[in-house]
């Protein structure tokens, strides 16, 4: 499934991620297969809208359609149609039939194995759905909570399901490299089960606290090192890089004073500019585009928005979600082109039937 691709971003269907994905150049989208954790879309009445916005953003390409358990845990209001439809996708009846039916109803949706940490995950029934849909499957596990990862791998191999992608997620943190040995161990066991599987090593070192770091700072991105370390230990061709797209995991709302911050992403780090002395987004952006670290020549939306902000255009960064979308957009573009630096600078794209 991933042959010819370079990158598997793991994303939630939040405003920032969707906008960041939607605005990527087609050339970058062609290098990735994202996996989205679905949740009801903003104030939309129907859950279908959430799938629509993902597919508008991804274009006519394969993507993993996962479910956002965090939103399930928030106990969405069952009186709202979208929330009810969302809850139904988690029902275990008939091997998660509701979920697999949703996946089957769109031609580019790839299922993500359900309930990997549950005792009664109905492997056989789920495999029936996967065989019926016939687009392969993602199996994702946290490195510290592998659940039935290896048992599922064995069953998939027994059923000759070769186009399975295993995602070993090392989670968020600045100590990601501690997970490398464990991730390597699981990857090696999967390779031993079938050398036809594809394996993604993912994690994120993007921080969640920027206090005390000053008005400008650089944060190394360790997830690439994690991937390289596992690749060094597991000599396997079909090992792919994944990450959380420089996002943070969802959290319950926390009342806090918002401090404007603009981040840009490079291939192995992020450069962040934080408001000091009540600087506005416009003033922060003006600092960004005069900084030696500023490229400004990639030709992508994220950079365009920083310049638009510095020049006080009507459409500009005015809130954290848009600032996050800018960072995520540049990050996704950088990681998709990590081994293809020639593709980083985007030029003219011929218009065809799309307009």
């Amino acid at each position, binding site marked *: 499934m991933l042959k010819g691709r370079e990158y598997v971003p793991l994303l939630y269907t939040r405003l920032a991620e969707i906008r960041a994905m939607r605005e990527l150049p087609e050339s970058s989208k062609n290098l990735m297969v994202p996996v989205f954790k679905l949740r009801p879309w903003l104030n939309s009445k129907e859950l279908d809208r959430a799938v629509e916005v993902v597919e508008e953003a991804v274009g006519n390409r394969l993507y993993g359609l996962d479910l956002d358990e965090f939103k399930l845990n928030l106990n969405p209001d069952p009186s709202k149609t979208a929330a009810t439809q969302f809850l139904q996708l988690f029902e275990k009846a008939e091997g998660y039939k509701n979920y697999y039916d949703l996946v089957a109803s769109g031609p580019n949706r790839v299922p993500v194995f359900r309930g990997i940490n549950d005792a009664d995950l109905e492997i056989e029934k789920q495999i029936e759905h996967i065989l019926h849909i016939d687009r392969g499957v993602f199996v994702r596990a946290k490195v510290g909570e592998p659940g039935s990862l290896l048992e599922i791998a064995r069953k998939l191999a027994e059923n000759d399901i070769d186009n399975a992608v295993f995602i070993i997620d090392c989670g968020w943190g600045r100590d990601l490299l501690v997970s490398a040995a464990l991730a390597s161990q699981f990857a090696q066991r999967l390779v031993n089960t079938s050398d036809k599987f594809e394996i993604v090593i993912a994690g994120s070192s993007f921080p969640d606290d920027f206090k005390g770091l000053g008005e400008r700072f650089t944060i190394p991105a360790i997830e690439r090192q994690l991937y390289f370390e596992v690749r060094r230990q597991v000599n396997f061709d079909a090992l792919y890089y994944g990450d959380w797209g420089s996002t943070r995991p969802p959290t319950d709302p926390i009342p806090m004073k918002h401090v404007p911050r603009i981040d840009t992403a490079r291939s192995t780090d992020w450069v962040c500019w934080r408001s000091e002395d009540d600087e506005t987004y416009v003033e922060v952006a003006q600092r960004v585009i005069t900084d030696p670290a500023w490229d400004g020549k990639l030709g992508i939306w994220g950079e365009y928005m920083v*310049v638009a902000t510095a*020049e006080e255009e*009507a459409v500009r960064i005015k809130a954290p979600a848009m600032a996050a979308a800018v960072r995520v957009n540049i990050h996704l573009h950088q990681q998709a082109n990590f081994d293809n630096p020639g593709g980083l600078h*985007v030029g*003219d*794209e*011929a*218009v065809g039937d799309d*307009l």
Partner: protein
Amino acid sequence: MITDTQRSILQRHLSEVPVKLGALASELGLEVFKSPLRPGISGLIEPSHSAPSGFRIKINRHESVERQRFTLAHEISHFLLHRELIRNGVIDDTMYRSNLSSRHEIEANKLASKIVMPEAAVDMLRRKYSGHSFEEMTHLMAKDLRVSEPAMRIKLGG
């Protein structure tokens, strides 16, 4: 001025909505690119040695699709109406102001509006959605024609 051949091409493409602007431009001999233009610039038309018509259009790849469509229609209109004035190129800002006169820009805007929102299609859709409120009608028609709601609202006289 618009030649008979161009008028015929235009009429044929305007009979189906949303109007396929890329195909229309191509049949008129124009090259069209989505380009990383700077903020504040929506599009431009300039001479090209490789385009059959002798002109290429660039539209800002970072603006919304609806905005890109109107910009493309606007630049096509400059080609149809003002190609003898284009010389080294015409760059349109986000307000569709350029080195051409206001009169020429107004002309291009009027024709662009007719290209993305053909009269016959507008009449047909107005009948189709006659049972809806003005706001709903604007929303539905904008979606069918792939134009912005403000542009649709102006067209419907709101």
